[in-house]
């Protein structure tokens, strides 16, 4: 190949050839004037397949609109999306995470879908999700699925150990007692629970049970440094006694969670993750109510993912139609089943022929519905970064590299910087 090239002119010719190749290589969907919608989402390979079917159905229904999908997995999705936004190449319709919603909407890059009501019907959203995606009265996102924070546990092991079984209104002390009993009974194979002070969502649940929240309405931190230190401290005894999965063992099984790697018998997580854990773990798993000291569950229905549109899209109407189709059409729900979480609209919820696991999630949510509280407003810009920082500092605490006080101080400083900018 070296012999064939040479001279600036000839290498320029080679470049031109590549240009031509790339240009012809893209089997374009740009027909005569029909709007083209670029649709970007994160997810696994399975979702890619299901998404293709759903898009084919949409194009059948709307022959005048062509949809070009693009996808990547969650971690890299955000780098790609932010680069596209910065560079002016934002997709028309995109999957959005509640934690990042305001990051984007506050900077004016998302379309207010309220203005496209004629193409997008949001009346079918479940009550607890109807305001999800709404920021300051503008609809920047529409929830696709909902989930609620829960406890996943292995009933058999709890029973065998003679541990207190989860029930409505059981307390944090009950839970600590239960997980300790399991760990003692099994000798740590598996442990009774994963260290639950590593999840910002457990902190949120506790705060909500106490009548507080993660963030104030003004978008500041809703809790003090002391509260956070106390939270990390609260499991110190469990860590010392070896009742929860030690930090180094949890680290080893990444990218799996301890529950998925058979390291623990219970773990707090979003209820739709049950599907994944059931597949990964050898244990029989079920969902349980959160422990609470106040009687309030603190649970609420959170959008597991939203759909948003770009403020710069040249086809807002077509974008709205696609969003509408994805959240309302029962056939879309049939295609996806539980892959996108439990759907956010009644019509789609009913359309699915649920697998056993997904049915368990639906039942759980329906069972908890009376206890569910009103959802907090979308978290402020910077919430995504805060969660990352929370995980890092939790690891420092769990590894004993930082005291809870130190870590809480650092977190407060970080929040101060991040939330004010």
């Amino acid at each position, binding site marked *: 190949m070296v012999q064939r090239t040479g001279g600036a002119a000839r*290498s320029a010719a080679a470049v031109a050839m590549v240009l031509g190749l790339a240009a012809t290589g893209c089997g374009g969907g740009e027909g005569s004037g029909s709007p083209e919608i670029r649709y970007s989402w994160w997810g696994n390979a399975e979702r890619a397949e299901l998404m293709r079917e759903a898009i084919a159905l949409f194009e059948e229904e709307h022959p005048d609109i062509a949809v070009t999908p693009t996808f990547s997995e969650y971690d890299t999705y955000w780098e790609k999306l*932010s*680069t596209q936004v*910065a560079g002016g190449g934002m997709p028309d319709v995109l999957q959005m995470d509640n934690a990042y919603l305001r990051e*984007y909407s506050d900077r004016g890059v998302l379309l207010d879908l309220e203005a496209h009501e004629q193409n997008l019907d949001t009346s079918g959203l479940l009550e607890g999700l109807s305001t999800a995606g709404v920021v300051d009265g503008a609809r920047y996102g529409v929830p696709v699925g909902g989930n609620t924070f829960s406890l996943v546990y292995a009933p058999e092991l709890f029973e065998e150990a003679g541990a207190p079984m989860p029930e409505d209104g059981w307390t944090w002390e009950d839970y600590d007692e239960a997980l300790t009993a399991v760990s003692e009974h099994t000798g740590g194979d598996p442990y009774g629970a994963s260290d639950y002070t590593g999840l910002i969502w457990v902190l949120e649940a506790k705060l909500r049970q106490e009548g507080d929240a993660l963030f104030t309405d003004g978008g500041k931190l809703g809790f003090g440094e002391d509260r956070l230190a106390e939270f990390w401290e609260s499991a110190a005894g469990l860590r010392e006694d070896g009742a929860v999965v030690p930090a180094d063992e949890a680290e*080893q099984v990444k990218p799996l969670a301890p529950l998925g790697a058979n390291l623990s018998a219970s773990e707090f997580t979003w209820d739709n993750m049950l599907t994944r854990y059931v597949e990964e773990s050898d244990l029989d798993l079920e969902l349980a109510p959160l422990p609470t000291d106040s009687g309030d569950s603190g649970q609420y229905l959170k959008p597991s993912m939203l759909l948003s549109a770009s403020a710069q899209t040249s086809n807002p109407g077509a974008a709205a139609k696609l969003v509408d189709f994805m959240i309302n059409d029962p056939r879309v729900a049939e295609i996806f089943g539980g892959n996108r979480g439990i759907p956010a609209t009644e019509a789609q919820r009913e359309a699915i022929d649920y697998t056993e696991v997904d049915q368990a999630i639906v039942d759980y949510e329906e069972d908890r519905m009376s206890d569910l509280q009103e959802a907090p407003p979308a978290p402020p810009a910077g919430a995504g970064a805060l969660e990352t920082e929370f995980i*890092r500092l939790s690891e420092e605490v769990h*590894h004993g590299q930082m005291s809870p006080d130190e870590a809480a101080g650092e977190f407060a400083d970080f929040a101060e910087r991040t939330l004010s900018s």
Partner: protein
Amino acid sequence: MVRTAQGPPSSRSSGDPAAPSAPPSPGKRARRLRRGREGVAGYAFLSPWILGFLGLTLGPMAASLYLSFTDYNLFTAPSWVGLDNYRRLFGDDQWLQSIRVTAAYVVLAVPLKLALALAVAMLLASPHRGQGLYRSAFYAPSLLGASVSVALVWRALFSDDAVVDRLLRSVGVETGGWVGNPDFALLLLVLLAVWQFGAPMVIFLAGLKQVPSQYYEAAEVDGAGWWRRFRTITLPMISPVLFFNLLLETVNSFQVFTASFVISGGTGGPAGSTLIYTLYLYQQGFTHYQMGYASAMAWMLILGAGLVVAALFRMSRTMVFYSGDEGR
């Protein structure tokens, strides 16, 4: 050490191509003419690079320099903040941590990888049956790159009760698995780099092949031992590739990203122990949406790594021997 490696007398003539053969007076003009033509030729040969530099590299570099003096969240226009980002860096514990981690990584990974690469290259340079096979096999780890699969292998090998742990325990060293231990986690990255020693090995091999065998024969006749032959012939003769490998591995180690990104899942964990500089830069830019700050970090890296590279180049003036360069 350089002198001993000089070629046979015939190759010692002046490096100036115009010098010996041309007659005096027209020679001067011819030389000036050739100088001019040589300049034109230089730019012509360099034109693709110049185009690429001006079109693709210079602009983005200048842009990132500008951004380093701004507050830029990727979504709204950058606003000028002067030296704020740079000032902030020095109060940022995590930034200082990332420098420590990266420095430790560079200091460990570069010499280990180069030593192994050179040792294996010398082993393979001698003619033996099956050496092609060995060469390919030794290169194989580098073919895998750094992907999620590599992260899985590495975690599996260095976990508690996995092969490395068992081996160490059998000789009485108790680590409890390296993966979950913040004191050992960085070593995983170092070992991954060392394991993928194929690139410098191949370059060393090519360099070794260029050493004329008569030198060794002559040295053998003089009764020079193994170490002396290595020091007086091999080292000087491969000094350009040694320098190249040293420089590039150093630069690459300052920039290593993908390995720590996939091994720690982008977190730099456990407990910040693998928070390599570029990973922290990535987090700032793309997780925290502070591209201005990230750009300042980038330029501090350029400054720091630039100093190291400049030092290496200075060192190379006395240590590196180019046989085609005489008379310059």
